[in-house]
């Protein structure tokens, strides 16, 4: 349970970090270390070089402007969870973070690290999917912007090249007064979720849905946007029947199946949790709907 030997690099500047990543063979980025270090301790991961981003300037911080919330990749999960601008502008993100690991892991874990790790059961990628986040990725070739819909390429796999690093995440803001809902099912608080759902709803003065986003996690190799369900909701008055119909829209064709939960159980969870997340979102937007499940 000790990591294999490696060389440690602690760049102070982004440019220096990018050059190290471009130059060093078999290198990995160390962000919060809450997923990587366990894998190194188990020797699932053996690297020759570790490039620690914790000392790099300008990689952490939260800002609001130009219709979006920008979060630096190295911002600690706990700092995002407690930031007033997140509570005000992206309450879904704050709510989701309460479910990410434990207090001790959120104190070190970062948003960029969680996205790069891309665990199918992770909450933060699902939030990025719901918001259609933009991921800023840097390397010696410059900075490119990746829409989150293109970011995950499969089970714990992303478009990130070996010499690239996430530097920031942009979440486009929804209209003030929109509703959010976040539900997951885990056997214990802080455990990996068997399944979960994140929902955003913008409801007009006439009670009709103007915009909807639903993202599921833990059910497929990467977060799943329930586009069919969203399409059913938009333009309709929001009531219990609409929520029920949306949550049963046929978007969960083949959920994951493993020792923790069968595909059938995950499909069931996906539907129940979508209903609950949508119900919470409706209520947070000021629309009263009865409990369905």
């Amino acid at each position, binding site marked *: *349970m*000790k*990591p*294999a*030997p*490696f*060389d*440690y690099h*602690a760049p102070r500047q982004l440019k220096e970090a990018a050059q190290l990543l471009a130059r060093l063979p078999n290198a990995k980025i*160390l962000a919060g*270390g*809450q997923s990587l*270090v*366990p894998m*190194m*301790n*188990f020797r699932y991961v053996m690297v020759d070089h*570790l490039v*620690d981003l*914790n000392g790099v300037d300008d990689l952490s911080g939260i800002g609001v402007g130009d219709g979006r919330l920008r979060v630096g990749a190295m911002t600690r999960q*706990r700092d995002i969870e407690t930031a007033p601008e997140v509570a005000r502008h992206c309450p879904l993100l704050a709510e989701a973070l309460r479910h990410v*690991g*434990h*207090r*001790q*892991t959120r*104190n*070190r874990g970062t948003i960029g690290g969680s996205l790069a790790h891309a665990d199918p059961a992770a909450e933060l990628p699902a939030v990025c999917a719901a918001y259609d986040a933009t991921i800023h990725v840097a390397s010696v070739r410059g900075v490119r912007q990746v829409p989150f819909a293109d970011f995950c390429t499969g089970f714990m796999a992303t478009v990130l090249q070996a010499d690239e690093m996430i530097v920031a995440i942009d979440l486009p803001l929804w209209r003030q007064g929109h509703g959010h809902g976040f539900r997951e099912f885990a056997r*214990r*608080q*802080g455990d990996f979720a068997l399944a979960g759902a994140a929902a955003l709803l913008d409801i007009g003065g006439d009670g009709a849905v103007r915009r909807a986003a639903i993202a599921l996690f833990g059910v497929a190799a990467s977060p799943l946007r329930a586009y069919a369900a969203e399409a059913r909701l938009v333009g309709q008055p929001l009531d219990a029947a609409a929520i029920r119909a949306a949550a049963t829209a046929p978007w969960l064709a083949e959920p994951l199946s493993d020792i923790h939960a069968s595909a059938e159980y995950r499909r069931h969870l996906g539907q129940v949790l979508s209903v609950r997340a949508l119900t919470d979102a409706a209520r947070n937007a000021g629309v009263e709907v009865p409990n369905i499940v």
Partner: protein
Amino acid sequence: MGKKPTRVTVNGKSHARLVEARLTLADFLRHELALTGTHLGCEHGVCGACTVLVDGRSTRSCLMFAVQANGCEVTTVEGLAPDGKLSVLQQAFMDNHGLQCGFCTPGMLITLTELLREKPDPSEQQVREALTGNLCRCTGYAGIVAAALDAAQRLRGASGA
């Protein structure tokens, strides 16, 4: 893969060492500084026995390298009772049967120290949520939760609240 220098302030005392980069903060505390109060149950971030405060925030010391703690202030369980006298929280653990074998206790104490600093009047639910990152094989948690709530009350009393 030469050794790297690191200077860490632990319980108020500064220590400089040359260490292998792969040395975890937990092993640094235990083997370099002989502070064996910090326990290792799993070494992969699940049990919480290794929890210490790094710059005031609860952290799993098995998931951080000693070289990363360069320039940091670390508090271990030894730092909770510097003069050998139990802290209010430690005394509450003793009085409420908050420990049996004691293996998980250092991590529990550190996690709860952070919680009580931020939330002097936590609900039982908040205590239980804070403790989800710390596993105990012995107590069934009831005594630990009681100890935390008791300590919170004693600390509030002491501060005249």
